[in-house]
């Protein structure tokens, strides 16, 4: 069993509260970053950067809902990183790509194909889809997170879904036929 980690020397109560909020949401934050940046950047870097930025400018924000704030920071940092061409190049050619825990989680071809299709979506489509289907956020909350309007978010999600369906249609049909023949 793991126990609580401790900071050497750090006794700032605000920092402790902040760390606790990060600890409570760290799993979700990492999952969101993974879903949005995929293999094109390090999700851990994304979360760390987002969290340190948030801490640095903590006075600017309303901390009544730290979870939402942290998630928004991670989404924005993910999108910011994806806009950075250099990061995309590094990620694509990453030599450890095959060995990462992330890739080890790909259990079968279908999951791999679906993730590939999600990865091919435009960044905002993917972010909106992740927040809608993975985080189960309402359209209004997604709009706030992505700094967009609700109709815009609905359009992104709609297009994301149709594009994924288009990309996977042939594969899914083939699999269905294969399964039917195997019976």
């Amino acid at each position, binding site marked *: 069993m793991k126990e609580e980690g401790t900071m050497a020397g750090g006794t700032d109560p605000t920092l402790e509260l902040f760390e606790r909020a*990060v600890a409570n949401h760290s799993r979700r934050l990492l999952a969101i970053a993974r879903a949005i940046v995929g293999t094109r950047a390090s999700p851990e870097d994304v979360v760390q950067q987002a969290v340190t930025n948030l801490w640095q400018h903590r006075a600017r924000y309303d901390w009544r809902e730290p979870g939402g704030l942290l998630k928004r920071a991670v989404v924005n940092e993910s999108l910011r990183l994806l806009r950075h061409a250099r990061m995309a190049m590094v990620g694509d050619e990453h030599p450890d790509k095959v060995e990462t825990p992330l890739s080890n989680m790909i259990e079968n071809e279908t999951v791999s194909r679906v993730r590939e299709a999600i990865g091919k979506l435009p960044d905002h489509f993917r972010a909106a889809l992740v927040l809608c289907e993975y985080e189960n956020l309402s359209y209004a909350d997604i709009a706030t997170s992505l700094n967009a309007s609700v109709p815009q978010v609905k359009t992104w999600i709609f297009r994301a879904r149709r594009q994924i369906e288009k990309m996977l249609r042939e594969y899914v049909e083939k699999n269905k036929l294969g399964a039917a023949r195997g019976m």
Partner: protein
Amino acid sequence: MNLSDQEMELLDRYLDRDLTDAEAIGLEARLKADANVSAELVKMREFRSLRAEAFASLEPSEVESQQLQWYVRGALHQQQSVAAPIGAFDRVGRWAGGLSRMAAVLALGLVVGYGIRGNSVASGPALVTSNKPQPGAIDLTQPGPPLVLGTAGAGGGTGVVQVSNLGQPAYEVSLTDQSGKVVATQRFGTLQEAREFAKDLGKWQQKHRQVQTNGVRLVGDDF
């Protein structure tokens, strides 16, 4: 017959539970009457379930989550310790201070990465007792009890030490800075967990370092 975009959007919103009660009742009546619409809904549900499976595969493990918390904690602590003197500076000074803090965090990351990279060679992570690094190193890559390999590298890094906690054995991974000061610690119940954590940490630092060096992979990382 293909459905229109409006009809498809209505089905999407139905699955997202975004329809009003009246809209939902109207759609459900139509689903019963129109085989095309209900067939499309089934198809949408299938794709949605595929996406859910793909998203589920992204769930981080507990160790990964702990590792992230540990890193964030280290970075925040580092930022906090540098931030105090900066408070006295003017706006320009704060901007410069921000850069220094970032540099300090990156430098810490590089130092940790350097320590981890040397796991299987003589410059392994420092063996830490009583929160003070001591000469000696542990091979985290091999199964079994920790192996002391040699003297620690001068650059700081991480280490594993077995500590006693009211008779219960526990293992602590410590992150030290360049001066050897323990910045953060994480305690584990088993050596296996501690090793796994330190190993993941090493991999992450390697990736981090690679990003910092514009994608150049150091040959030394392979050893």
